[in-house]
Structures are given as structure tokens and as C-alpha cells.
């Protein structure tokens, strides 16, 4: 980790890694989509709509993982004062937010034919919705506070407090639902998913994951460039 502390080192690493990351991403999506749309079977009960699972579940899992990563980056920023940790959290947020939005949208599109309703306030959906709010709040902090060090300091807190909140929300809504709707437990595809469905699902999850990595490294490169430009501009103003 110390190696990446130097932005120049990081940029060198990113430059080397990115082509591979993009290639792997493209391959994973190609294989995953083929599995999702062609080779995997329609569900006994849900029919073709089960195919939405292959985009919904990866988007949702990754949206959650990315937020956790943001909280970890923020903790690293606080504890170790790693210079790139804040940038990593900042750049990960929009990607996670898009994934989260896709999870909500595809979930809604999956829910309508499956449960007959566009939305329901069960534990999973509610915590996803809260996650969306957390992403928006985090990004709003970076937007609202001009001074970058100050914005970073505040954003770290928002990320960490947010990550604590997500499991609590999930737990509380779960509890609430078991109290009030003991009959309807919304399962995904059954407890044991068939192999013909599992491998496309895992492939798509990996695809979304590698896409995140590629976008993240590129975004960090942009962020480092933005910082240099900002410093240069400030110097210029100071020198006048």
C-alpha cells in the first residue's frame, strides 16, 4: 500500500494494469451475457423474467461492496493518512451510485411481473433505497464543500456513519416485516441455485466488478490530474 502512496507510482501502475482490466471486463461481459441470455434456462415459475437476475444481483451486490470499500478507504484516510485514500473513496462513489440505481431500477422491473408490484418496502429493497440516499449524500458533500481537504474530512465521516447504518436498516426492516408479513418472504431464486444459472450469475458479477476496477483506476487518474491542475492554478493566482 505504501507503494501506491506516491501518485506517480500509482499512475504507472494504473497505466500498466488498465488495458488488461478492460480486456478482462469485455470478455467477462461477453461470456456472461451469452450465458444469461442464451444458454441459461428460463425459470420454472418466473419464465424469461428470471434473466433480469443476471444484471440485478451483480449491480446490487457491487453497489453494496463499493460503499463498504468507500468506508474502508475513508477509515484508511483517517487512520493511516494515506494520500490517495480520499481520492479512492471519492471516485468510487459515482460508480457505486450508478450500480445502485441500476439495482433499484432492474429490481423494480423484475418485481412487477414477479410480484405484481413495482415496489415493496421489504428489508432488501428498503436498504438498497437507503444505500442510494447514502451515495447521493456522500457525493453531495464533495459537491457542496469547495475546499478539498475539508470536503475529504467530512466525506470520510459520512461514509463511515453510512456504512454502519446499512445493516441496521436491513435488520430493522426485516424485523418489521416478520412481525407484519410472516407469509410473504421474497426469495430470489430458491436457496440452492442451479449450476446453469450460477455460472452466468458469477460471471456477470465478476464483469461488473472488473468494470468497477477499470473505471475506478481511470477516475483516480483523472482525480490526480485535477489535483495537479488545481495546485497549478492556485500557484498561478498566488504568483500574480
Amino acid at each position: 500500500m505504501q507503494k501506491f502512496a506516491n501518485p506517480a507510482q500509482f499512475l504507472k501502475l494504473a497505466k500498466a494494469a488498465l488495458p488488461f482490466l478492460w480486456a478482462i471486463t469485455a470478455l467477462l461481459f461477453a461470456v456472461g451475457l451469452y450465458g444469461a441470455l442464451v444458454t441459461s434456462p428460463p425459470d420454472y415459475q418466473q419464465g424469461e423474467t428470471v434473466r433480469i437476475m443476471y444484471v440485478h444481483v451483480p449491480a446490487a451486490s457491487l453497489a453494496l461492496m463499493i460503499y463498504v470499500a468507500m468506508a474502508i478507504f475513508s477509515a484508511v484516510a483517517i487512520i493511516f493518512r494515506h494520500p490517495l485514500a480520499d481520492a479512492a473513496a471519492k471516485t468510487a462513489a459515482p460508480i457505486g451510485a450508478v450500480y445502485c440505481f441500476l439495482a433499484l431500477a432492474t429490481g423494480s422491473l423484475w418485481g412487477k411481473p414477479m410480484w405484481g408490484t413495482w415496489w415493496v418496502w421489504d428489508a432488501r429493497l428498503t436498504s438498497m433505497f437507503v444505500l442510494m440516499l447514502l451515495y447521493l449524500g456522500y457525493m453531495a458533500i464533495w459537491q457542496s464543500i469547495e475546499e478539498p481537504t475539508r470536503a475529504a474530512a467530512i466525506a470520510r465521516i459520512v461514509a463511515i456513519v453510512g456504512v454502519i447504518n446499512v445493516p441496521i436498516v436491513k435488520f430493522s426492516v426485516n424485523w418489521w416485516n416478520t412481525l407484519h408479513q410472516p407469509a410473504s418472504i421474497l426469495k430470489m431464486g430458491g436457496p440452492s441455485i442451479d449450476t446453469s444459472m450460477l455460472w452466468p450469475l458469477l460471471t456477470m458479477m465478476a464483469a461488473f466488478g472488473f468494470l468497477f476496477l477499470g473505471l475506478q483506476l481511470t477516475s483516480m487518474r483523472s482525480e490526480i490530474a485535477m489535483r495537479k491542475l488545481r495546485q497549478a492554478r492556485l500557484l498561478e493566482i498566488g504568483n500574480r
Partner: protein
Amino acid sequence: MDFSAAHSGFVIVSYGLVALALFGLIGFVFWRDRKLVIQLQRLNESAKT
């Protein structure tokens, strides 16, 4: 996939939305990166001169 099956529209819209969003995201990230790298290059050049 059987496109004539019931509710296949939902599947199509889902995948379409995902494609739109992801390509949009990729496009945005690349465009921003290009723009900043060019700006940085210009800055380095003007610093050397």
C-alpha cells in the same frame, strides 16, 4: 431467450437500461479523463517554455 414469452419486454428494458447506464458511465469517465490529461499536458508544456 424466447422473445415471445410473457413479460419479455421487462427483460429487454432491463438490459437496455443497464447497457445505457454503463456505456454512459464509461463514456463519461473516458471523456473526463481525456479532457484532464490534455489540460495537464498543456500545463506541462507551458511550464517548460
